[in-house]
């Protein structure tokens, strides 16, 4: 089992190496080690080499990344199950969190280190939430099955009849003097305005995470900077917990005030559709897919990604009649994350958008591709807990875990059939 303690995130100023914060581990790394981690990176820089990642033979891993020549984030893990992709995403997401809360200017042009250190504290809640994603899932069932932080695709729920909620959301958003609005159901996007979908996927994931108020909090008004869309001008993210787990969000300018929207608009727009909201909450309890879809009873869980729209749905398989069930839900989600990482780093590599700091030609991990010119479209993996299969089409990717009892030769047809069933039924 992974533990959040197994990953540590450090933030330092890039030029002087002053530690700004450290999150994740109960026992923070000693100062001398932080200093060495920074030192070895700096040594590389001095020799025109950029050090991005290193690995020990026992599975420990360290990742460095400098953002805007101003701050350096270091991710360190001692657990072999924490992949490079996981750490890389963590650094990107953490940086985006910091921009979201404080704005780019504050981070890119550090004027007063002590002040920045104090202000960075406002990001801890979000950063810790990301660190805990996908690990120790047992005690926060609300977050189970959310994968956006890893896949950079928005976690969605597919509603059989979204029209009424969509209309309601659009009128509500207009009434709040905005064009950006969405409805979250248990942390997953159910419906959103067209403009909301135009936000960058990384932004959507962070907005969903920050807007996912814990039960009991009824509304919030957070100043947010959009890392891509508006890094230097703060907008206001207002969220309203309509029913526990169903949250309406809007991105606004200076007006209207939280009090005004909450007291004048929330009830007036959302009360008439309260039954629809309740049924979507019930639905997600069972599966974020349509209740009418039935797939093979040996499917333990699956993740379906639409590659164009960068949306994803993840669902547990039908409740297993076997007792005891072969794998706990938490373990299934964990294996699904590991399998996703395995598949996209080794086979479906085109998903990994090349970027400047980590060129796509990472020769260590391209065991399969080297020497082949074609693109893999299927892959599978057998473990002693379950069997895993992935399919890639121009539009979709499906990652699937099945029970060990499914014959290996049948995996392919189970997977393609499941993909067909879902896409024809939902048009996803």
């Amino acid at each position, binding site marked *: 089992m992974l533990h959040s303690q197994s990953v540590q995130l450090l933030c330092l100023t890039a030029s002087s190496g002053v530690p700004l914060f450290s999150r994740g581990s109960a026992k923070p790394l000693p100062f001398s080690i932080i200093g060495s981690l920074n030192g070895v990176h700096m040594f590389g820089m001095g020799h025109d080499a950029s050090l991005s990642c290193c690995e020990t033979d026992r599975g420990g891993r360290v990742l460095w990344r400098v953002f805007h020549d101003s701050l350096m984030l270091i991710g360190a893990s001692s657990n072999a199950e924490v992949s490079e992709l996981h750490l890389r995403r963590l650094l990107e997401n953490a940086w985006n969190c910091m921009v979201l*809360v404080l704005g780019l200017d504050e981070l890119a042009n550090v004027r007063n280190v002590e002040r920045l250190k*104090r*202000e960075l*504290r*406002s*990001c*801890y*809640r*979000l950063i*810790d939430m990301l660190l805990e994603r996908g690990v120790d899932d047992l005690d926060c069932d609300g977050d189970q099955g959310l994968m956006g932080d890893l896949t950079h695709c928005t976690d969605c729920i597919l509603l059989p009849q979204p029209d009424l909620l969509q209309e309601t959301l659009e009128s509500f958003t207009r009434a709040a003097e905005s064009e950006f609005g969405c409805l979250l159901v248990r942390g997953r996007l159910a419906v959103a305005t067209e403009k909301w979908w135009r936000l960058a996927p990384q932004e959507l994931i962070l907005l969903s995470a*920050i807007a996912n*108020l*814990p*039960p*009991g*909090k*009824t*509304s*919030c*008004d*957070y*100043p947010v900077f959009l890392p891509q869309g508006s890094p230097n001008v*703060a907008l*206001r*993210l207002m969220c*309203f*917990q*309509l*029913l*526990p787990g*169903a949250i309406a969000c809007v991105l606004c300018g*200076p007006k209207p*005030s*939280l*009090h*005004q929207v*909450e007291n004048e608009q*929330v*009830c007036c727009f*959302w*009360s008439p559709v*309260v039954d629809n*909201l309740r049924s979507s909450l019930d639905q997600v309890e069972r599966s974020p897919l349509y209740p009418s879809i039935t797939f093979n009873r040996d499917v333990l869980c699956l993740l379906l990604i639409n590659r164009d729209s960068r949306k994803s749905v993840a669902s547990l398989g039908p409740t297993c009649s076997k007792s005891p069930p072969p794998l706990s839900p938490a373990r299934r989600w964990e294996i699904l994350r590991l399998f996703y990482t395995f598949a996209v780093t080794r086979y479906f590599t085109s998903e990994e958008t090349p970027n400047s700091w980590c060129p796509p030609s990472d020769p260590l991990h391209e065991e399969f591709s080297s020497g082949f010119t074609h693109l893999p479209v299927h892959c599978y993996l057998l473990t002693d807990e379950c069997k895993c299969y992935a399919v890639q089409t121009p539009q979709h990717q499906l990652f699937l875990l099945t029970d060990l009892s499914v014959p290996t030769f049948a995996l392919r047809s189970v997977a393609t059939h499941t993909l067909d069933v879902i896409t024809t039924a939902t048009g996803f």
Partner: protein
Amino acid sequence: MECVAAGSIMVSDWHRSPDSREFFRRILHKKQRRKFGLLEAPVMPPHLKADVVRYKVFLSGKSGVGKTTLAARLGGLDMPNVHYETTGMETSVVFWPVKLRESGRTLFFHFQLWDCGENAMRRFDHMLPSCKEHVDAILFLFSFTDRGSFEDLANQISQIMEPSDRLVRLVVGTKFDLFMHTDVTERDITRFQEVWGVPVFRVGGDVSGGFGEIAPLLNALAENLWHQDCMQASTLVPSYPGQIGPEIIV
């Protein structure tokens, strides 16, 4: 605004009496406090109808003093075990049933608690006005483990309240359970109450989510708000259009 004596308008310790059980049952779920969404309210059977009166309450205090924890405590939510700076404004809702002493009428008070991170308030100008918009009561918080936060109270009260504001104000001392580290003595509290005429409540310690610790504070809040509205209603023309009185949902 002068404070009313505890128990003069409402039945104090009503949560202990058997006739309140039906009402308190509506704010509980599996022995824990029920969490309400914005579209929800406790539903009573027809023969036990209770009106809901809504009030906005602003929690004010220095960073780290325990505003978010107090809101969670009053609402019966999970108490945060790590301190996180609140990144903006957050609200939570507390329903609290009370019984009026004279008429025997029962009411559900709907407190909307507004909590705002101090850093965010400093960086963004719209936060404080938004918290104060149509506010009915302010809870000023200090921490028993931080003398600075106690000494800052006077400053805070005069900064946030205008002389013309007719608001209920109460003071709450948090982290009272950490008496080993207390920085604020009983004498300080007594003197403060005499000078300012504001009652001081103590919270901290009780993590069981029971009503014992929060009842005196919620009752006092309800009593003072009700009193304030009665005073206003008697001095103003009742149907004065600009008045922000209790909004009664039937």
